[in-house]
């Protein structure tokens, strides 16, 4: 879960932002991680794209 979320952050916000989030996500439940990425993604890539991308992260989690 962490890796999929961090890959998504890195893809759009770059590696340096992903590194800070990696620290923040440590020990956090999946719900907090999803809320966090949803918050920054909606603002940056728009609601529709954010939903698509977060859905992929969730699917990754299901696997």
């Amino acid at each position: 879960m962490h890796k999929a979320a961090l890959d998504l952050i890195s893809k759009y916000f770059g590696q340096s932002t992903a590194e800070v989030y990696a620290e923040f996500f440590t020990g956090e439940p999946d719900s907090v991680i999803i809320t966090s990425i949803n918050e920054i993604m909606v603002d940056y890539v728009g609601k529709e794209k954010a939903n698509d991308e977060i859905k992929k992260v969730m699917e990754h989690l299901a696997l």
Partner: protein
Amino acid sequence: MKIRTILFLAIFLAISAAYFLLFPKEPFVADGALYLIAPVAAALIALYTSRIYRFNSANGRAMLLISGGLVCWGIAEIITYVLNNVIPDANTFPSLANAFILLAFPLFGAGIYQGFITAGVKLKQVNKSLLAAVLSVSLILTVLVAYFGVYLAYDPSADLLSNIVTVGTGIGDLVLIILSLVAILVAGEYKGGKLASFWKTMASGFFLFLIADIMFALHGNQYTEDMYEIFMELGWIAAYMLLAFGMLENYVHLSAVQKNIKLKLSQK
């Protein structure tokens, strides 16, 4: 784009126009150092923005390549300024500045292609009326650039290298039309997001460049000091400023995201 950004752009253009009217300088107004502010600012801000992504991400690669193009144009403008004002004896055509102008086109192309891939644009889902409007404008620009910037630019009496540079620049403008179109499609993928604003601003900047380039080609590549020329110069300045603002807004947003998460981390 934010209101304050538009206001700043309008004020900057008004100051530039006043400067060009009050201090016209032979042989053309671009000699004014004020003209250099916009391209140098665009190049520096673009580099700074690329740095925050640290290059090794999909979006970071797109930013880095587009920044590379802006840096090439910034260098070309500085070289042109130096050749016109400092060492006019060395001012030949083509010059090193032309090489940097041409080098920017493949960098912009690669950057916008990377942006297109990252966005995962689905052409079937693109708004049809938006596509029709953009295609119509692109078609008009294509005809104008192809005729004035490519066909008429070829001079059988000039040497091969000069023709390669002039026709190559016209072809570069044709590429810029396609890239602007692609940038609009990418913006459509990020509807409602800050990235949409970034790509729209990039597309607007490139379109303004094209319009100024077409005005230059229509002018017969001859500089004279009149209002037409001042509008042409303002077109280039506005284009550079738009590209700089697009990058700057992106940088400010990313900085805010990083600052916010660092704050949350410190409170953990």
